[in-house]
């Protein structure tokens, strides 16, 4: 049963990831990423990370992807030219990705972490629940939590600054023209 669930999630995740880079229309890429994220949430559930799975579906597949969909619809489908500035990029890039995969596989095979080859220890009741994660976040990792909120604030202000129309004053100057 666990095997079936794992392979269903793994196929969904890998298929979604491949579809993200294979689709020519960015809009479909975003939808493929939603499939990928939901499959990953299922895998998180298998790993007893209930809160992370819920946050993944609500925050990631919900909120962040809506942002992507809006921007993809706003920008529209930009066609990618066949012209390549780097000769052979189409063949070189998958080769480099495969080399990275081989390197990671060697690292995993040669690892000294004995815990990797087990199913992991028996977990106490309540592992990965919102209660436990909340306790950890607000006690042991309080500084990290506050730093993350500061980071979000800075990112939000930065995004508004980047995407907002230019300053109203400057816009008025432009409208008046250089002669004024």
């Amino acid at each position, binding site marked *: 049963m666990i*095997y079936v669930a*794992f392979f269903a999630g*793994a196929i969904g995740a*890998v298929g979604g*990831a*491949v579809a*993200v*880079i294979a689709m020519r229309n*960015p809009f479909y890429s975003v939808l493929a990423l939603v499939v*990928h994220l939901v499959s*990953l949430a299922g*895998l998180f559930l298998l*790993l*007893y*990370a209930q*809160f*992370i799975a819920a*946050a*993944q579906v609500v925050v*990631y597949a919900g909120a*962040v992807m809506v*942002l*992507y969909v809006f*921007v993809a619809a*706003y920008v529209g489908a*930009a066609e*990618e030219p066949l012209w390549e*500035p780097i000769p052979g*990029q189409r063949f*070189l*890039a*998958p080769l*480099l*990705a*495969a080399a*990275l995969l081989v390197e*990671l*596989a060697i690292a*995993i095979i040669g690892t000294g972490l004995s815990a*990797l*080859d*087990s199913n*992991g*220890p028996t*977990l106490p009741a309540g*592992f*990965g629940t919102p209660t436990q*994660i909340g306790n*950890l*976040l607000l006690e*042991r990792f309080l500084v990290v939590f506050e730093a*993350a909120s500061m*980071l*979000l604030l800075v*990112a939000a202000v*930065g*995004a508004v600054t*980047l*995407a907002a*129309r230019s300053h109203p004053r400057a816009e008025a100057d432009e409208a008046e023209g250089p002669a004024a």
Partner: protein
Amino acid sequence: MTVTWYVVLSAVLFAIGAGGVLIRRSPLVILLCLELMLNAGNLALVAFSRAHGNAEGQVFALIVMVVAACEVVVGLGLIVAIFRRRLPLNVDDLRELRG
């Protein structure tokens, strides 16, 4: 189901994401591929958290999600700003900074 399966899956997903960053040229799709790589890292963190029976890895994954959200917000802001200035949405055309 040993933890190795999950770690191998996360390595595969990370490699796919890296390949996407190298192949695609639309900034929007490159951001999506960065998401793939961050989520592969998240999967590895949660798998290690399971392997050690320690929930601190899950807190780490949560913080990675926060950082990913920040990256998305700033990246999409940049894309909208590029689009507004009628510049081409292609990373090969936007390379004046390279000198």
